[in-house]
Structures are given as C-alpha cells and as structure tokens.
C-alpha cells in the first residue's frame, strides 16, 4: 500500500472498530479529536493567553469526561436514587487522558501535530483505543512518521504476544472470575482464609485480565510495526507499594505523576505538601476508574499506603540494622509478601462495589475472625464436596500462581522466552492455544477495564 494511504486506512479501520460497538459515539471521538487538534494549534500560538487557553482546553476535556462518567454519581449524591440514562462511551477515560497529555505537552512548549489524520490516529489507534496503554504523542508520532513495512518479524513478535494475551484472559482471568464471583456473591458465610483466597484470586484475575488486554493490544500494534510501551512489569514481585505503582498500569501511574502529582507541586514543597499531593493524586486516580465510592476508597487506600511507605523509608534510614535486614534476601521476600497482601486488601475495595460489604470483608481478613466458618466439622466451607469442581481447580491454580510468581518473573526478567528458539516458542504458543480453546468458559465476561 502506498505510504500516503497507510495512515488514513489505519484511521478508517480504527473508526470502524470503534463503531462496531456503538456507531453514534464515533461522533464524540471525532468531535473531541477536532477540538483538541484545533485547540492545540491555538494554544501553541496563544502567547500571553497561553495559560487561559490551556486551562479552558483541560476544562473542556474534563467536562466531557465528567459528564459521561460522573453525572450519575453526582445525581445520586444529591438525592439517592436519582439516575440519568447515560451510556459511558468505550475508552473515553483513556483517550481523554491522551488529549489532556497532548495539551499539557503543547503548553510546556512542545510542537503541536500538524497533520489532523496523524493526530486522529494517535487518539483512535485501535489496539490501544479501548483500554490503553495511555500513549505519549511524541513517541507515537515518531513511529507514524517512520517508514514501516509489512515484515514477517513483526508477525513473529506480535502473534505470540496476542496468543499469550488471549490465554491470560480466556484461560486464567475468566476461570478465576467464576470463582471470585462465587465467593463474593455471599461473603458473609466465609471465614478469613477463604476471603483471603478470593482476594488472591481476584488479584490474579485483574492482573491477567488487564495485562492480557495490553498484550493483545501491543501484539496487534506490532503487526503494523508499532511498538506500544509495556503497561505491567511483574507487579506482584514489587518490594513496596511505590515499587508496585512503578510496575502496575505503568502508563496511568506515569500519567498521574506527570500531569497531576507534579503540577500539584510534587515533592518540592516539603513533607506535608508531598503527602497531600500523593493523597490527592491517588484519590483522583481511584475516582478515574469509575464513578463509585469504592474506587475512591481504593485510591485513598493506595494514597495512604504510599504516604506510610514514604514515612517508613525516612524512618528506616535512621535504623541501620533494620535497613540491612530488609536488604537481605529474606527481607526482600518478606517485603514482596507484605506488599502483595497489602495490594490484595486494596483489590477488595476495587472489586466490591458495596463499600460496607468491602469493609466487612477487609475486617474479617485482617482480624482473622472467624478463622473457619464450619458447616461440617473439620471442613472449611470452601472445601465442601458439594461445591463445583472449579473450587479445587482454582485453589490449585492460585497456589501455583503464588508459587510460580517469583520463578516466572525471574524467567521473564532474564528474557528466557524472548531468547528461546522459534520452534520452542511455537510449541509454547500452540499449547496455549489448545488449552485456551479447550478450557475457556462458555461465557466470557468483558475485559474489566472496558468499563473505565
């Protein structure tokens, strides 16, 4: 295909992809694209009015996002039960953040994109349109302008990524989802160990669900010769909560750092201001996930955890013995386990929409009370033989994932899969395809992050 046709064709395909969900919303994405492209060009030439133009541009984007996302929360807060029939457009949180990033960068002195087609493609690029990763335009623009040809090597890299992503979603996340759903349907009957098990299962479900989507997106982009940055870097081997946010949903956490935490003042204005900024950034980050109190609580929980970690780090500096102990192998392992469990508690708030119920579950998990909910002597409820086979299968799966988390991560860190010979990689991918097709559930829930 001639080079001049490639971008318009890719744009048309991306719009067609978006329209396959709900055609009317294509007008929204086209409208926002036109506005931000024009506004970006005006902002670049605004001179003294730059700050005002910038603020108006950001406000317009936030208003649009807020209307679709938070109107119902607002109405419900005013009067319980008030509700408006507003459908949340797919991917709006992601492409709005890309637009805000664009305006920020123009405001900071970067050049606006001249080509409307390229700008539209930046926002609508189908592999990342629905659930990210949130792209950065200078990097993506460079790739769009570069000469890209159809190459077998792109397929060799892209197809295994797509297969791995699909296996994460269909084989692991969706089977774990059935188990999590069963547990959270009536958490009151379960004891602490069972609730921890559900939390572990959800931790892996959301990881495989979201990182699976990202892998599919990255793989699809790679088929066209585009390299999308990674969004996950083995988050469950994080050594502390700050480390976790360097490894989890990287494109969002860096966006929040660059366009919320730093503009709020970052860590430049002393300890208290830093804590305030951390708290606000994470609370708003939580709310970004959805118009629901549980997401706000999840964000606040992570904000507080980050503050606590920062204070602990400062305190630790004065305790040499403790510092050495934590730097040891055992210390590292304990740090990883502690961080993982702290993250799991956070996931309860993320998953359980009823905030009272979420607090109830967390209370049981933390107090280990009751330790066992016995229906029959000597039995954890979850091991009752009357429960379906998915229960022991998932328990085994979670146990394996917990045990394999570290070795797999080390293997991944060393790039064992990437460096393996092609036939070996193909055997692995073929086995994944066969397992996926055999064991995927009859009904597959949509990706969790599609709702955001």
């Amino acid at each position, binding site marked *: 295909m001639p080079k001049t046709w490639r971008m318009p064709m890719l744009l048309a395909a991306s719009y067609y992809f978006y329209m396959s969900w709900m055609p009317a919303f294509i007008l929204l994405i086209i409208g926002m694209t036109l506005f931000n492209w024009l506004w970006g060009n005006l902002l670049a030439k605004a001179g003294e009015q730059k700050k005002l133009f910038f603020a108006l541009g950001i406000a317009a984007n936030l208003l649009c996002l807020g209307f679709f996302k938070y109107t119902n929360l607002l109405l419900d807060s005013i009067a319980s039960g008030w509700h408006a029939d507003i459908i949340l457009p797919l991917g709006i949180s992601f492409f709005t953040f890309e637009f805000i990033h664009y305006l920020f960068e123009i405001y900071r002195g970067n050049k606006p994109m001249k080509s409307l087609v390229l700008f539209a493609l930046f926002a609508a690029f189908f592999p990342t349109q629905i659930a990210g990763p949130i792209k950065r335009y200078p990097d993506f623009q460079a790739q769009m302008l570069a000469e890209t040809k159809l190459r077998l090597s792109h397929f060799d890299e892209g*197809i*295994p990524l797509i297969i791995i992503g699909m296996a994460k979603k269909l084989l692991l996340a969706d089977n774990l989802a059935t188990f999590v759903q069963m547990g959270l349907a009536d958490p009151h009957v379960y004891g602490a160990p069972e609730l921890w098990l559900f939390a572990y299962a959800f931790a892996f479900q959301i990881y495989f669900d979201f990182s699976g989507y990202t892998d599919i997106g990255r793989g699809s982009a790679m088929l066209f010769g585009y390299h999308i940055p990674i969004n996950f870097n083995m988050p469950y081997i994080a050594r502390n909560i700050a480390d976790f946010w360097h490894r989890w949903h990287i494109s969002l956490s860096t966006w929040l750092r660059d366009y919320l935490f730093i503009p709020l003042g970052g860590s430049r204005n002393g300890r208290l201001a830093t804590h305030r900024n951390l708290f606000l950034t994470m609370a708003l980050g939580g709310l970004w996930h959805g118009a629901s109190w549980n997401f706000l609580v999840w964000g606040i929980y992570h904000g507080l955890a980050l503050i606590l970690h920062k204070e602990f780090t400062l305190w630790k500096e004065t305790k040499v013995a403790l510092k050495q102990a934590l730097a040891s192998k055992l210390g590292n392992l304990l740090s990883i386990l502690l961080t993982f469990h702290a993250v799991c508690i956070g996931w309860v708030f993320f998953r359980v929409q009823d905030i009272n119920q979420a607090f109830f579950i967390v209370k049981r998990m933390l107090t280990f009370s009751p330790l066992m909910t016995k229906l029959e002597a000597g039995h954890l409820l979850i091991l009752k033989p009357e429960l379906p086979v998915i229960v022991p299968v998932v328990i085994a799966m979670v146990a394996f994932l917990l045990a394999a988390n570290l070795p797999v991560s080390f293997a991944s860190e060393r790039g064992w899969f990437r460096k393996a010979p092609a036939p070996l990689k193909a055997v692995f991918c*073929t086995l994944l395809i066969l397992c996926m097709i055999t064991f995927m559930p009859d009904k597959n829930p949509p990706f969790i992050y599609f709702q955001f």
Partner: protein
Amino acid sequence: MEETPKKQSLIRRLCGSTLLWIVLFLIAFDCFLISVRPLQYVQVRGLLTADQEPLNDKLESLYSAINKPNMIILGSSLPMHACFEADWLAANKPQWPTNYISRHTGSEYLNSLFSKNFAQPIHGYNLGMPACMISDSEEIFKDVLAHKIKPKILLITVAPRDFIDNMAQPVGNSRYSRFFADRRDGLNLSLAKKAEENTEELLNHAWRFFKVRADYSRTIEFIVCSSLGRASNIFNAATGRGYKRDQLSEITQGMTTAPYQDPEPGTRSASDDLVVYRKRYLPFNEKRLSTELNHLNALLAMARQNNILPIVVSMPIHPQNLALLSNLEQDKTFASIAQVCADNNTRFINLSDSNNYANNDFSDSVHLRSQASKRFFDELISALETDSTFSPQLSQLCSNNSKRIASK
C-alpha cells in the same frame, strides 16, 4: 552461484519464524486428531463425541465402498443390535470389540438367508442408529440418495418409540440433523451474520480441533470431576448432579474396548429400562406420532420414486415394554403405520407382539440377544416367503440389476 546465499537466508528466516512454526504445529496436531481420533477410545456416559459418531463412520464407508449394497437397513438401535448380534453369533463369536456394535455395517446373516431362501445375491448395509426416529431415518436416506446410491430394497425397521418418543429432540434438531447440518460442505459466511458467527463458521471448517473442542473439554471435565468427586458447575452442584468417583472406571473401560460378550438376560436391567420407556411413551404424543407418520410417508414415497422396494417391519419388543402403551394406543400406532404402508403400496410385517420371544431373549426391554436376533431374521424371511408376490418382485429387481450391469 550468487543466488545460493539468498535462498539459504530465506530458508533460515522461515525456520526462525515463530508464526510459521505455530501454523505448522497446529496443522500437525489437526492431522493427528483426524487420523487417530483419540476420543473414540474414551467412553463417557451421556457424551457421544464426534470421534465416536457411528453415523459418520457408516456413511463414510458406504460412500467409499466399491461394491455398493443393494439393500439398506434403516431404524434405531434395535436393528443395529440385531444385525450385530446375529452376525457375531453366525461368525462363531469372534473377538469383536464392544464399541464395534455401533459401527457394524454388515448384515451377513440376513444376506445368507436371502441367498438361501430366494437364491438372490443380496448385500445388505446396516444403517441402524441409536435413538433414531423415523424423521432421522428419512434424513439419512435422503443423504444416501444424494450420494447416488440406489439400493434395490429398503428395509425399514420400526418400533413404537420411533414415532412417539417424548425424550427425543424436535424434528430438525436431533443429533443426526445436527450431524448433517455440521457436515454440510460449503462455507456459510454471510454479511448478515455477526463477525463472531462468521469467525466460528470459518474456524469450524478450517480446523477440526476447533469443531470438536467441546468434546475434549467435556471429557477432561468428566475425568477431573470424577477424580475429585465434584459436580462440574454450580448448577449441577446445587441440583445434586455431581459426578461421583466410581464413574471414573467407566472411562478406563471405554479405553480398553474389551471384546464383546453376549449380555446376560436383563443385563441392562429391564426394570430400569421400563422406567425410561414410560417417560418416552407417556403421555402419548399424538402430534409427534402424526409428524413421524408424515416422515414415514415421505420416506416410502421417496423409495417408490426411485424404484426401490420398501419393506416395513416392526421389531419384536418385550411384552412389558409394549404394555406401557394402552391397547388403544398400541392399536392406533400400528394401525397408522399399516395405513401409511398401504397408502404407499408397501409390505408391513408386524412382529412387535410375536410369541416367539421369551424374557431370556431380551438383554433389556427392547434389544434382542444373539439367538433371538437370528430368530428375528428367520421370522422376517418366513414372512416374506409367505408373500407370493415378493419372490418374483425380488427376482425382477435383481435381474434388472444384472441386465444393467451387462449392458454397461
């Protein structure tokens, strides 16, 4: 000389391509599945995998046969068992595997009777299928004709269940209808369909494993459920339909395909069988009877149009089984069948209440044991012999055939 390095680098590039290796492995795996059909060695109660579908085997071997049969036997598992049992006994109880019952296409004993009593070379082909309704038989026969196979005789065996089974799927949705629907040749892609439906259609045609994936998942699910003694899903768990550990032995039995042995009388428990048949028969489904009679009518008409001689024979069944139907219901069923046969100028031989069969002749309430199967075919031939018009008709049909072969 200069082109060699280029070629080498291309080969090396192809060998280093993960994508090509994946495609290669998937094709190889599919070829393995098609040639070995591993699930035929597994026996799971309530699950008939595509690898085990006897209709597929029987039709494939019929269509690929060099010597096409001149008699087709249609019906349910009753004639299927009878042909197998009689042939097995006539062949002096050879070591045939148990799962061969549903794949046995011969009717050697019946052929020998035709040869002995009518001096005609009849080569019968047993297309009896488990739980086959008359509407299914019609569909099977349509497929046979569509493959340009025109026998001289069409032997249709019937029993009351074939017309009124309450447990049977509606016409057009039976296991055999679905088999034919799935087996259709062309790709049925359409813009009117959803993208996922088209993808499914394409993958079903392109990749055997995708088509039979549910068989594998259900078999593995059964093995896991049985090993752990748990139900497969929440619904089954709630309704107490969990798999039990003792069922695991059934799978291994299926894998060994032990040699067939004549079952003891009532091995399949006639009383259990009667409980099931009560559900099949009652309440008496007149609407289904009428529908199936229409299909019988169509089947006979189709045979007549193709100059095929149809014979309808009602199989002997256990008196207790027959007694599940009231006299009125029995009369209505058999009188209607007889009427349809008469309308199509077809011979109807009713052996359903024959006095020649005792309790010991049935392995359950419907299936004949080996000696009784031979006796059934003897009785059938005797009934045909008493009909003075049959022998000349048969001779004429066979001579037409010989003349046609000679003229070719």
